[in-house]
């Protein structure tokens, strides 16, 4: 049997200050296989952000094991974690987190630049990915000249630039208008059909329903892991000229 993309074994995260011990995650175990589109749901304070940080190799679990694409993510140095994030994970953030005043294409090229890929090649790929998310006509627009939905699409293009094992989206529609949210979901579903593995963290049931599988988190524990047999199909068609 092939190895899963994500494998969590009894992962806990405990924050400790002098007087208070906070358990953010308690004994979470699940696996995600290649090609799945998973939504992680939970109210605020449920620990889903902590989970996202661990899944994104931005933080390390206090106990338990986390295998990302077959690699054990544990006591690694900052630089080794940077390297893993660079190669294995495509991030899509709620606040887009693009470089300000920087052309869309440069943003998409950034992870490839850190991986020291050939510049010409990176530029070609970046163009291709931006066309894929319907921004072929906005290659050289700077971040502040784009709408929220467009910025998030640039972020998606950047997320897939390194062809990562996992696309990790944290509230990807949280900062954009609902009409544009549908576009984002439509892109996610398209990427899913193309075989990308996607984990999307959200607190909105409507958005979560676009996924194939929904994992519910509550008070730091895995509360329900359900398969969504009839995912909502995003209707938005990507238009090149918006």
């Amino acid at each position, binding site marked *: 049997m092939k190895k899963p993309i994500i494998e969590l074994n009894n992962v806990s995260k405990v924050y400790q200050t002098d007087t208070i011990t906070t358990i953010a995650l308690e004994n979470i175990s699940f696996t995600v296989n290649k090609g799945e589109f998973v939504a992680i749901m939970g109210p605020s304070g449920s620990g889903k952000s902590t989970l996202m*940080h661990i899944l*994104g190799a*931005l*933080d390390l679990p206090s106990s338990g094991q986390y295998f990302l694409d077959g690699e054990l993510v544990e006591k690694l140095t*900052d*630089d080794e974690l*940077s*390297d893993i*994030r*660079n*190669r294995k994970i495509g*991030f899509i*953030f709620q606040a887009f*987190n693009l*470089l*300000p*005043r*920087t052309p869309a294409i440069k943003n998409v090229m*950034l*992870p490839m*630049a*850190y*991986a*020291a890929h050939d*510049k010409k090649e990176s530029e070609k790929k970046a163009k291709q990915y931006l066309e894929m998310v319907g921004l072929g006509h906005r290659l050289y627009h700077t971040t502040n000249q784009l709408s929220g939905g467009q910025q998030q699409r640039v972020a998606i293009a*950047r997320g897939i630039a*390194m062809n990562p094992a996992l696309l990790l989206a944290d509230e990807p529609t949280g900062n954009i208008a609902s009409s544009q949210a549908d576009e984002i979901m439509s892109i996610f579903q398209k990427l899913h059909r193309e075989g990308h593995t996607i984990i999307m963290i959200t607190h909105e049931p409507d958005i979560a329903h676009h996924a194939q599988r929904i994992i519910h988190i509550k008070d730091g524990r895995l509360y329900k892991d359900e398969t969504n047999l009839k995912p909502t199909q995003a209707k938005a068609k990507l238009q090149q000229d918006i």
Partner: protein
Amino acid sequence: MDYYEIASEAINTLRVNKLRTSLAVLGIVIGIGSVIALVSLGQASQKAIESQIQSLGSNLLTISPSAQRSGGVQGAPGSSTTLTNADAESIANSDQITVIKTVSPEYSGRSQITTSQANSNTNVIGSTPAYMEVHKIEIATGSFISETDLKAMSKVAVIGPTTAATLFGEGVDPIGQTVRINGNVFTIIGLTVSKGGTGFQNQDDVLYVPLTTAQKQLFGKSHLTSIAITATSEDAMTQAQNEVGYLLLERHKLNDPSEADFSIFSQQDILNTASSVTGTFTTLLSGVAAISLLVGGIGIMNIMLVTVTERTREIGLRKALGAKKKDIITQFLVESVILTFSGGAFGILLGIGASYLYSVITHSAFVISPTSIILAFVVSATIGVIFGWYPARQAANLQPIEALRYE
């Protein structure tokens, strides 16, 4: 990431905050500018002094009477009357002297020189024909003082170009004109070629008369104010100095060189003294400039720390996308080096401009040494690295989650 990319990103970032960037750079501009200006100023004055002294002749020795000690009372330097015509003659003729070419006994003093239209307080030098060779005097028109003039105690004079211009006006031929010194009428027989020099050191504001005339008729003295001698070569300077020293000690019946009532110094001695004085000044001023450079560096560090705080989110994002510590450090170091480097470039222009202005105003030489420019560039880049290092490390050590969370 290649350096071209990093540099162009850095320049873009710096361009966004133009005012802040230029204020941060100002400290470096002023620091580098003043270093360049002061070093060039020091070098210009050094050069001026050197060329002036060199023009007097490099194998020239000057003997002057030194303060005489008598019963514990020390007179003013040069006040004594111990050097005589006989001393000069014995230097010229003694068997003990082997490496001396020319001896020029001199009596000089300042006097008021008048014509019917003008007057000038000028250095009057009683000289012999040897003076011309020893001091490398060149005659523009007419002739210098001759043996005949000396023997006949003639009332003739050779005039320097500055004095000639003062007394007779610019471009007027002074030959054949007369001047009055202390009631005596002198006829001008020659005009010297300009030797340069300014102010107190002006070698062109001078009037030469026969030594005998100066001693007996003008000043009524029988001693000499100095004896100038030239050695046969520059290498023989020390030997010449020793030979003359021992001869004079013997003649003055002194046993101990520390009791000598005269002193002998070479042009090199004067040059060394003058150089060390200007050198000290240059060092002092450069020290002050270096302090302003240090303050400028602290300004850069301050701005870089602000920048790091402002861009916490961006740094977090970069780390999330795969930037390693080295990448972040490089990015911020490049930014601070670009800051200080451009500051250095403007500073060099400012420094060159300032020293050019100085040279125009004071009519002095305009010297810019390539070394000081290269040094300024190296120093400004180094300041960028040194003062950018701490902020860059702060940035690189940010944890990506903390940084992404930062609002």
